[in-house]
């Protein structure tokens, strides 16, 4: 008969072992709440990904192709020769540990294999075995190990617990970017048909229909039509955006999340109200209807294929340049990869604001600017009328999304806009914002529901800083410029910091924007009474 344990004994839980122990030998255990469902065969087949079949991560048999080890090692050799950064990152880590406690998944969850250094070590150990002399001959003594099924499962488990946020890289004296190692791991696992349903579904949709949700043109137009109705109810102004219009000056591309889920829809209403007030010559596209790129969470090649439609559509419509909406990873892709993948976009012109005449030389090559760059420039040049007091019921803080902050240095524009359209703004503590911002905890396609536990753990460091400003300054609104943030921070706030809601920056802009010919506004974009208009104040 088993004896009842003491509380202390109950707590001897079987965590994964720390790096000082023999972590290599322990088999990985996939725990519910930490991983997403496996990809469906039909979605993999739609984009011609290898080994398309339904698979279930918890089942012992992953239905891998023959000689999968050979496939991975061959791909590894190829990427090592192609990408110098990958090779360098495999070689130069001195295990100083500076990155170890900088990952939100480690900080919030405590699993040592979520320390960036150890996450990378999962792959480095295999690299050493097959690509270094010491590893080949000394094996474990040189920190090397063979690639086997357990290692593969461990890769899959932990490289899909990394949001590629790059926070760790900020603290590494050598600039080693674990996100790049995760990118490689995801490439390799995709060669074996190992992806998640939450990522591969949107990828297939985007490839077939132009956006992650698979919205067809009429659904997109319907969605926008609904927003136009709401705008009319609130402002008395009927706006008429155009779709797929040839000869427009500007193509506008935003993540499809802005079209279907609150609070993103309010941000989309914000863009349209601003563009209407300015009278700029722009068009939506129902084909390039996705700014986001879940392909980026599978492989370089897939990301490139999905991205191609943006330039293709710009060319077809004959626009002069592109404005992109508020999104995070979308901007990492546009800013750092689009030009080399699918450029040069020399059929377009260097973006120039039709209102202020400002030329955006920073986008001289990509021909695509971020909507906050565009709007900050308008405000700087005094081109729009604003009544910040309409946002006076909001006490705001700003979350830097990893990709716009660390990936492209977009730090000042959103803050400048928020401070122009709102009266009450408070920053979170320094070590949680700007380059050192904490991830929302659900990026890179981890924003499914079945992995809610790890999302909440990973989101805790960010939420904890929000809680601090809520308690100290009464913050009740968390602004950001990322569609994934808008969705996932809502969940995170709900759990960790009730009372704080989430908004895009252009929702705040549109609330404050005084439009020509508007009726006296009674409500904000969410249909809630404006400050002083509630009748109960």
């Amino acid at each position, binding site marked *: 008969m088993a004896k009842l344990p003491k509380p*202390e004994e109950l707590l001897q*839980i079987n*965590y994964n072992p720390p790096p*000082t122990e023999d972590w290599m030998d322990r088999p990985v255990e996939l725990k519910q709440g930490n991983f997403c469902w496996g990809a469906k065969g039909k979605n993999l087949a739609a984009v011609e990904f290898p080994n398309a079949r339904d698979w279930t991560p918890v089942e012992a048999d992953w239905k891998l192709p023959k000689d999968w080890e050979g496939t991975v090692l061959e791909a590894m050799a190829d990427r090592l020769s192609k990408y110098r950064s990958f090779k360098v990152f495999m070689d130069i880590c001195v295990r100083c540990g500076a990155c170890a406690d900088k990952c939100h998944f480690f900080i919030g969850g405590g699993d040592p294999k979520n320390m960036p250094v150890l996450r990378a070590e999962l792959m480095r150990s295999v690299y050493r075995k097959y690509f270094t002399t010491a590893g080949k001959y000394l094996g474990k003594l040189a920190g090397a190990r063979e690639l086997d099924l357990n290692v593969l499962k461990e890769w899959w488990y932990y490289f899909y617990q990394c949001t590629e946020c790059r926070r760790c890289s900020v603290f590494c004296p050598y600039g080693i970017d674990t996100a790049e190692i995760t990118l490689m791991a995801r490439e390799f696992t995709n060669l074996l048909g190992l992806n998640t349903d939450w990522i591969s579904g949107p990828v297939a949709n985007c490839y077939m229909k132009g956006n992650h949700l698979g919205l067809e043109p009429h*659904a997109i137009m319907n969605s926008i*039509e609904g927003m136009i109705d709401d705008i009319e109810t609130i402002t008395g102004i009927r706006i008429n955006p155009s779709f797929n219009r040839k000869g427009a000056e500007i193509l506008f591309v935003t993540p499809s999340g802005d079209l279907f889920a609150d609070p993103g829809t309010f941000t989309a209403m914000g863009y349209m109200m601003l563009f209407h007030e300015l009278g700029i010559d722009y068009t939506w596209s129902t084909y390039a209807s996705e700014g986001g790129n879940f392909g980026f969470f599978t492989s370089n090649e897939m990301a490139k294929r999905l991205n191609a439609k943006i330039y293709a559509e710009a060319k077809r419509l004959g626009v002069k340049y592109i404005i992109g909406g508020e999104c995070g990873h979308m901007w990492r892709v546009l800013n750092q990869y689009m030009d080399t993948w699918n450029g040069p976009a020399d059929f377009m012109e260097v973006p120039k604001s039709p209102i202020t005449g400002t030329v955006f030389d920073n986008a001289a090559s990509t021909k695509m600017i971020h909507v906050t760059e565009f709007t900050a420039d308008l405000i700087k040049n005094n081109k729009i009328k604003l009544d910040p007091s309409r946002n006076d019921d909001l006490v705001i803080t700003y979350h830097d999304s990893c990709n716009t902050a660390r990936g492209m240095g977009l730090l000042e524009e959103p803050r400048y806009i928020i401070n122009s359209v709102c009266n009450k703004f408070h920053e979170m503590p320094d070590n949680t914002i700007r380059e050192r911002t904490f991830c929302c905890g659900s990026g890179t396609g981890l924003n499914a529901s079945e992995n809610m536990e790890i999302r909440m753990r990973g989101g805790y*460091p960010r939420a904890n800083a929000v809680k*601090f400003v809520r308690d100290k300054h009464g913050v009740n609104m968390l602004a950001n410029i990322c569609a994934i943030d808008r969705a996932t921070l809502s969940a995170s706030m709900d*759990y960790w910091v009730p009372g704080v809601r989430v908004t895009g920056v252009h929702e705040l802009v549109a609330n404050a924007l005084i439009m020509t010919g508007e009726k006296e506004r009674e409500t904000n974009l969410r249909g809630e009474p404006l400050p002083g208009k509630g009748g109960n104040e």
Partner: protein
Amino acid sequence: MSLKNILSEKKDELLASWFDRILDTYPVETAKFLKNQKDRFANPVGQAIHKGIGDIFQELLQNGDIEKVSGFLDSIIRVRAVQEFSASQAVAFIFFLKSVIRDGLADISLTPELYDELATLESQIDSLALIAFDIFMQCREKLYDIKANEMKNMTYRLLQRANMVTEIKDAEKETNFIAIHKKEVNS
């Protein structure tokens, strides 16, 4: 001297020992980090536990106000409810306090009065554990709510936007809807 006074005097030592025992429920490397990183933003888990147990201890010795103590428990349990602990593992740390206190009193000869006080305190700690369990359940239910809401919010809005669900509209909106509908037919 009353038991509470004795415990107050030994507070730092007792809390340090309670903290260490809780950290022992994490892997060695993690425990080191949770203990040594004192910045509350760089180490929210360690600091939440550290502050939480201090507050619980204080409240236990003073008024034992249920509302207050629930708030303090929440700050720790909310974290453990999403870490890789079972329900019993998530709340068992409360019971550690009993052995921490017993060990802390090892060098004191307990009078019958002190024993009585200790018995009362220990049963209060048992109550804490029951409250903790309720909080754990609330956190888990919240998680399921969030999952359900995410799905609902996404699909519902989408269907609504695609005019695939009929809502009961208020009178004004109804007219709007008809007006748009007419326009579609006419255009």
